[in-house]
């Protein structure tokens, strides 16, 4: 199919771009931004599968990042386990939690589902703060060792960039594969009409839980990356605010599109960086201008461009191509 070949070319081009980018952008500050974008993109990739393809909603996704991240931190710092094994363990724990919470939650629909995920996210964040024995409370866990790959310490922005974006690349390929597979068609069917999908013989419950767990797994990896990047884990980045940020990224980037997460994460992260100095001008104590900006973006996107940037662009090019063929 022509569409598949375009995707292959695009993925190859993306890979080249990723390898070239750090050679062009050399200042550590900008490289660190790229690392953060990568971590966000990884988390949004999971959310995109859930929201964009399967049509479900998660307003508490930061919880999964937190579980993965804290598992990494606790196992590495308090028990001296190899960081890579700790990351895998974190993913496993997150998957189990996602499965346990997913089965009853995904039976709900529409706003009930949204609310349940919201409640779940808040409860998990409260546990992060209150269970001081396990998580270190508000101060969190510090002193995470750096990751080492084949003896080389991943301590520079460049090396972490490669690790993080390597994961994003794999996630993008996985999303593309899912999109063109039977599972992808099933998810899209569920997204348009769950009843119709069930009538066609699709086991909607099982697919929904599976995509939920997969999205949680990706979030767990992103959370571990974040925790290792900052060398400490604390509850603040894993709360309601970040869950909503992820949703904004997913909505802006584009639902049901392989490139949505990267575009959304990139746009929102860059916007946050740009708004920081502007915020200082408005209020010297540091007004968080990005907060109302995100709210405004969310509202305007959903009114005018509900499918997000990448999907709308894709639809537009399709329509133009069709018009050219007809005209």
């Amino acid at each position, binding site marked *: 199919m022509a569409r598949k070949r375009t995707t292959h070319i695009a993925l190859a081009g993306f890979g080249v771009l990723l390898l070239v980018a750090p050679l062009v952008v050399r200042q550590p500050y900008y490289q660190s931004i790229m690392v953060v974008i990568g971590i966000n993109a990884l988390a949004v990739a999971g959310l995109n599968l859930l929201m964009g393809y399967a049509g479900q909603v998660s307003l508490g996704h930061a919880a999964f990042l937190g579980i993965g991240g804290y598992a990494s931190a606790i196992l590495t710092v308090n028990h001296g386990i190899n960081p890579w094994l700790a990351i895998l363990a974190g993913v496993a724990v997150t998957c189990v939690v996602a499965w346990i919470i997913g089965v009853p939650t995904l039976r709900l629909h529409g*706003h009930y589902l949204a*609310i349940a995920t919201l409640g779940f996210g*808040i409860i998990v964040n409260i546990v992060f703060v209150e269970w001081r024995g396990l998580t270190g409370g508000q101060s969190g866990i510090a002193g995470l060792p750096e990751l080492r790959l084949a003896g080389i310490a991943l301590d520079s922005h460049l090396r972490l960039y490669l690790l993080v974006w390597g994961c994003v690349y794999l996630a993008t390929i996985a999303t593309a594969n899912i999109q063109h597979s039977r599972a992808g068609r099933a998810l899209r069917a569920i997204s348009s009409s769950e009843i119709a999908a069930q009538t066609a013989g699709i086991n909607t419950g099982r697919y929904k839980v599976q995509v939920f767990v997969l999205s949680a797994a990706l979030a767990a990896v992103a959370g571990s990356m974040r925790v290792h990047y900052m060398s400490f884990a604390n509850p603040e980045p894993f709360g309601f605010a970040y869950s909503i940020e992820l949703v*904004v990224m997913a909505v802006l980037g584009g639902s049901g599109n392989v490139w949505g997460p990267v575009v959304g994460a990139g746009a929102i992260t860059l916007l946050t960086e740009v708004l920081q100095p502007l915020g200082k001008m408005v209020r010297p104590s540091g007004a968080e201008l990005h*907060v*109302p900006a995100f*709210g405004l973006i969310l*509202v305007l996107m959903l009114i005018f461009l509900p499918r997000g940037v990448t999907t709308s662009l894709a639809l537009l090019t399709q329509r133009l191509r069709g018009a050219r063929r007809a005209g």
Partner: protein
Amino acid sequence: MSTSSQILQCIFTGLTVGSIYAIIALGFTIIYNATDIVNFAQGEFVMLGAMIMVTLQTVVGLPVWLALPLSIAAGAIVGALLERLAIRPLRQASILTAIIVTIGASIFLRGVAMIAWGRDAKVLPPFTKSGALFVGQAYIMMPQSLWVLGVTLVVVVGLMAFYSRALVGKAMRAVAINRYGAQLVGISPSRMVFWSFALSGALGAMAGILIAPITFAGYSMGTMLGLKGFAAAIFGGLGSSAGAIVGGIILGLLESFAGGFVSSGYKDAVAFLILLAVLFIKPTGMLGGKAGR
């Protein structure tokens, strides 16, 4: 403090906080009945009511009896603006989209409040100044608690009268019971939607003004209050006004006892654990689903 006075303390605190949750829950219920939408910006109505009241009282220097209705009117205006600018343009979009839009609106409002009022907590003086009241050894906070309970009662009675006597109130009930039928008798559902947002805004503002002297007034006060009020509404049964009130009071009491006897840190989790429990076991809540009132 002896256990009996601790229990008494928890009861009073729980009733006070629960009344606030009840008013906020009523705000959710009114909008839900008219539109099927869960308005996540409800908490920000609460916050704005309190903040505007603070500004009117302390900066502009208005007396309480003037600042109060103005602040409530401001809440209604914000609600109406939300409906016109963010909800109305959505037209046929899905309920889920509308919900996320309200989330976007809520963070927008919170961000604007942070820029306008800064990060520090503001102090709102209580309605009447006098010493704390004691019953036995239980310290009932301040007379403000009595104001909270009293005003909540007035609000509840007022709403009951509104729904059963006022034309607009009856029209809103009609839309909630049967939208198409209401249209057939000449009621404009879209206008009812508008009024329900305005009414919810006013109620939210009232709740904020009541609670701010007891806790604090700050740009972030709305988030948790809104979410807990929402949990109360679901607990009582989304769509049922009586459920909202009962849910709010019970939630307030449960939270207060959990804070007093279990752990004050995990107190906040109570509302959300109840929320999840209700959603998983009986999503329609205690007093059942939509039925007009």
